[in-house]
């Protein structure tokens, strides 16, 4: 097979992986801190795309609209996330895992139906921002500019999040909370406030992922369903609660997906979910997990 085609698919795999990473990082941070797996994360991703769409059209089609939408949408989503955490999730911390899953699953139903109610069942799309139309030429290869931008942006963002978690005193609270939240609470830090912030931050990242996918994939009410299960694969692969694991997992799943599409398309999803089942069974802590 043509080596150029393989390299091209490798690049596309990284692009797909970048979106998975954004969603999975939120999923894994929330799990690490709150010990809750958020089944509504996929619906939030869709919501992010729709909110970005509305913001972009509201502000008009002037050139900066896409940027403003991308910048604002995650905050709107994060605010909604904070409300969900304070009013719903907080009641569930003492409950069994099963009930937390059921609660966030119920939130998914509500979000998806609200989306259909507000924006209609047919998807929305937004033209590519004019600054990002075009290609980057690198030797014999041409890469769509938007995809190059996406990789760079996600890489920078991951670096920023990593610095935030590893190098700031606030990150220290998050890390400590992931290790032992009762102890953090005993040390006089308001753990519930931290929970709210971490949850809305994670949800905001999913919203950002939705906003960033808008120009290429558009927005559909149920776009989060498949991607959520794929991001479960990502976090399980990397290790639940592990930030670097989510990045690694996202890259692996993205690249495997695009390579399978090249070599044997029908087996793509089957391969990915088989891999997930095998990892849970053989190495449940994942590649870099600790729980």
């Amino acid at each position, binding site marked *: 097979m043509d080596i150029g085609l393989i390299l091209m698919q490798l690049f596309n795999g990284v692009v797909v992986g970048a979106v998975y990473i954004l969603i999975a990082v939120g999923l894994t941070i929330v799990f690490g801190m709150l010990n809750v*797996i958020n089944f509504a994360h996929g619906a939030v991703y869709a919501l992010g795309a729709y909110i970005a769409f509305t913001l972009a059209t509201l502000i008009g089609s002037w050139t900066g609209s896409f940027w403003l939408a991308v910048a604002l949408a995650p905050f709107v989503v994060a605010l909604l996330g904070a409300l969900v955490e304070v009013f*719903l999730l907080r*009641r*569930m911390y003492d409950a*069994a*895992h*099963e*009930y937390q*899953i*059921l*609660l966030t*699953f*119920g*939130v*998914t*139903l*509500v979000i*998806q*139906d*609200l989306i*259909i*109610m507000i924006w209609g069942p047919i998807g929305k799309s937004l033209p590519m921002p004019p600054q990002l139309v075009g290609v980057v030429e690198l030797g014999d290869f041409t890469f769509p500019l938007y995809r190059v931008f996406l990789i760079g942006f996600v890489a920078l963002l991951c670096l920023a999040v990593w610095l935030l978690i590893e190098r700031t005193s606030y990150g220290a609270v998050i890390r400590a909370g992931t290790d032992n939240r009762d102890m953090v609470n005993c040390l006089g830090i308001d753990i519930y406030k931290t929970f709210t912030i971490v949850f809305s931050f994670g949800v905001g990242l999913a919203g950002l992922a939705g906003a960033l996918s808008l120009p290429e994939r558009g927005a559909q009410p149920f776009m989060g*369903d498949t991607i959520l*299960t794929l991001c*479960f*694969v990502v976090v*399980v692969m990397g290790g*639940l609660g592990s930030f670097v694991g989510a990045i690694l997992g996202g890259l692996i799943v993205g690249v495997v997906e695009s390579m399978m599409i090249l070599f044997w398309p*029908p*087996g793509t*999803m*089957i391969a990915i*979910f*088989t891999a*997930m*089942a095998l990892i*849970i*069974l053989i190495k*449940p802590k994942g590649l870099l997990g600790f729980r």
Partner: protein
Amino acid sequence: MERKGILETGLGRRAPLLDKETWILAGAVLLLPVVLPYKTLAAEILIYALGAVSFNILLGFTGMLSFGHGALFGVGAYTTGLLLKHLCWHPLAGLLGAAMGGMMTALVMGLLSIQRIGLYFVMLTLAFNQLAFFGAYQWKQLTGGDDGLLNVPRPDLSIMPGLELPIQSSLQFFLFVWVLFIVSMVLIRRVLRSPFGRVLVAIKENPDRAKAVGYNIQRYKLIAFVISGLFTGLAGGLYALFMRMVPITAIELFTSTDFILMSLIGGLGSLYGPIVGAVIVKIASEVLSQIWPRWLLVLGLTFIVFVIFMRGGLWAFLTMIWGRVKPRRGLEVGR
């Protein structure tokens, strides 16, 4: 409510196969086609109710949340569909195939899934459901892929040579489903209200203690999974007969989540709760969807309210009211 010892409540003994409870259930369910606007809905409700009750054997009685029951239901549906389509068998043979198919799938899925607990169990069952879905989706020659398995025949029920019971009209088919539903419920009740069933509940309440007492909890979990798969597969087979086809949606994750919705709204802690849930959810989806297309929003909100405030579901609510009206003795719930 005061807690009684197992011997006092009689829960440690096997429930009788047929008693007043069975007749009340059979009679109540028989009212469905009378009160519902169309008869086909009644059969569909019973099929889903059987699926939800089977699902609840795991969540409500053993404490395992499975997102994989869509796969069991779908395998049952495809098995019946393929048997009847290509081998032209007796409908009961097709359904037996569905039950066996559901059982075998549950055996494999269960054997692997019960290796992990909690979140990882949920994720494993979810992965298996996705595997089954994408498998069915891609294997077009066998399953018809996206279009579904079309033209599944619904042959008449031949009891013996010369005597054939037609199950073509919606009322005839409802009665056919009704008989199988009641038989299944009697069997499931016998399993759950037996010493075996009490061990399952013990595993749900405190797995470590159940283990310490000396039960092989892995074996119990697996048997519960297989029994659940058997009846879910049967429900899937009935669905194939009902639809006269197998849509790809039968094996989707949404089927799993349907069972979860029904069980939780109806009541996890009781045997009959999921039936109430199936009635409510299916009527809501058929009737309300014509009035207001966004009824799912209401369902989602109801679901959240139930998760937070009423984990016993509607059934617990009904038994509470029943207990007020008739304080002598409340209906016995599963736990």
